[in-house]
């Protein structure tokens, strides 16, 4: 076992452990038998489960566990006996004052011989990220969609032949493990026993963390078999999380990264839509590739974790052209994936106000809160002031499609105030203030979508929303 940090488990052969840890005679460094890493990206948290075989003698056996130069959360370290559990008992845990990154377990044994231990703890510094490579066919109808994961180990510790699992989902963690690891453990007075030190340290909130550890341990026991399947990345849902288990084992050296294939999607169908949504994409008409993470689309075997998508287009001449690089958020099974290719110079969009006029005036008499409208037959005096009116605006959306294919178009705009949207375009409302138009523009066509907006102003404003009105 090569260590960058000093993460060791040693057995002291003395039958009784002296108070001063520096006097312990260390003679055995049992290597790890197995190690399993479960990486929670959302919290810079990795659960490490390792098993080691230790030789015990009858009586009290001091076990030393140290974690120098690593990012282990000391309050999370836990010891269990996988074999001879009835003959072994953990008496206490001691943190020597002069060796801050070390603890001793005093284990009473009723037998002579080997026993398998399981040590679990949290560490930070191990992360994973997903990325996707998509290649569209020249006709822009099908694409390949391949997913990859990259695991990076900056925890200060090498993990040889580790089972690796990556968890998608957000867990609730009271404190950051990195902060706990860097805080140091306990003061001299607090070093007498582990439970006492945890209570005195207070801020560790170890009970909550141990509860989480227990739950995770139980969850992973359920998933353990799946992780030992023949070599592939196994995906499974677990509680509120989704776990990707890397086939077999991987050696994760400190400071190294490793990239592995997550899945492959061939001939994934997608559609193209042109969208104008200024709040999402800025003041431009953008070209979107839309596909769905489902089996119909030859995907859907797994949710897609947050990651970077790199999209290329096969140019039909044995070459690729790079289109976009885009960050996507977690995509559950069944949800649509939206790739924004940006503005298309071959599709021109203009929004022009072609006329503006006002009517439906209301006046208020000077010095009185009485309102008069000429449209209701009221007589307006010279000192009466305008306090309400309707502002009419005629607009046109002009789209010119210079492509050799028809395009699907969607235009969504938001308006403040009490607004009427009048048109014969069969609009819909995306929300209370955002009408949405859809249309198809044929190849080479110049299309105009005309509509009228009526803003009820001043005394005329009764609402803050947009109402759709159809005109023939």
């Amino acid at each position: 076992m090569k260590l960058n940090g000093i993460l060791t488990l040693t057995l002291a052969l003395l039958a009784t452990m002296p108070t001063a840890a520096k006097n312990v005679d260390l003679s055995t460094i049992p290597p790890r038998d197995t190690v399993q890493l479960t990486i929670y990206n959302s919290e810079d948290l990795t659960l490490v489960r390792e098993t080691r075989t230790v030789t015990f003698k009858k009586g009290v056996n001091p076990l030393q566990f140290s974690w120098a130069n690593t990012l282990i959360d000391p309050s999370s370290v836990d010891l269990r006996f996988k074999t001879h559990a009835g003959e072994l008992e953990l008496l206490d845990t001691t943190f020597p004052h002069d060796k801050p990154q070390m603890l001793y377990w005093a284990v009473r044994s009723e037998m002579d011989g080997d026993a398998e231990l399981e040590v679990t703890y949290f560490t930070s510094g191990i992360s994973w990220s997903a990325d996707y490579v998509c290649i569209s066919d020249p006709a822009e109808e099908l694409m390949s969609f391949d997913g990859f994961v990259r695991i990076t180990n900056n925890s200060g510790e090498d993990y040889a032949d580790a089972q690796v699992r990556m968890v998608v989902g957000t867990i609730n963690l009271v404190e950051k493990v990195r902060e706990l690891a860097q805080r140091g453990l306990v003061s001299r007075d607090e070093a007498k026993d582990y439970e006492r030190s945890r209570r005195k340290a207070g801020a560790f909130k170890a009970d909550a963390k141990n509860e989480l550890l227990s739950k995770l341990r139980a969850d992973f026991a359920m998933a353990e078999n799946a992780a030992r399947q023949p070599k592939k990345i196994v995906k499974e849902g677990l509680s509120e999380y989704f776990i990707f288990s890397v086939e077999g084992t991987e050696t994760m050296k400190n400071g190294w990264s490793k990239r592995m294939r997550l899945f492959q999607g061939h001939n994934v169908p997608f559609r193209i839509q042109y969208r104008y949504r200024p709040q999402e994409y800025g003041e431009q008409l953008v070209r979107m590739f839309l596909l769905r993470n489902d089996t119909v689309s030859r995907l859907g075997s797994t949710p897609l974790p947050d990651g970077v998508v790199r999209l290329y287009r096969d140019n039909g001449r044995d070459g690729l052209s790079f289109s976009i690089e885009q960050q996507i958020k977690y995509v559950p099974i069944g949800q649509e994936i939206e790739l924004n290719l940006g503005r298309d110079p071959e599709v021109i969009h203009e929004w022009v106000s072609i006329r503006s006029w006002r009517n439906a005036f209301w006046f208020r008499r000077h010095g009185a809160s009485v309102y008069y409208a000429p449209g209701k037959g009221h007589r307006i005096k010279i000192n009466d002031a305008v306090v309400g009116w309707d502002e009419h605006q005629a607009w046109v959306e002009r789209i010119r499609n210079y492509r050799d294919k028809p395009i699907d178009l969607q235009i969504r705009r938001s308006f403040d105030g009490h607004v009427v949207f009048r048109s014969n375009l069969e609009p819909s409302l995306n929300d209370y203030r955002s009408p949405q138009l859809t249309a198809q523009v044929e190849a080479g066509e110049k299309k105009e979508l005309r509509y009228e907006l009526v803003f009820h102003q001043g005394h005329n404003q009764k609402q803050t929303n947009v109402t759709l009105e159809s005109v023939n």
Partner: protein
Amino acid sequence: MKLYLGVAKDIVVKRTIDRRDQKRVLGNLYDYDVVIKYEIENFKDQPVILDLAESMRALRSEIGVNNQRDVEWELVADSTLTDKLDEKKSTADQAVFHVSLPLRGKDDKAVKQTHTIHLRIKNEW
């Protein structure tokens, strides 16, 4: 595609606001009749088509009416450029006219054309 070649110094346009009449409609609501006169000379030795674009917000500000509302305007029929209005290129805020200018005469004198636009700016307060 448009290429900007610079300022055409051989085309001279003198623009004046010849008339500004304010008419009360109701209460503090007013209409304004504005007549803009253009005197245009083409000193080039080739005919050209001149585009005249009049911004309504700028014009309203020019006649001393300032607010943030859109300009409600209409072209009154007695304008000499009424039939030159390009309705495709005109917008709620901009009226665009096309004027054909003949080339400079044989005596090197440019023909001076005089045109008027009569605009009604409505419902201002």
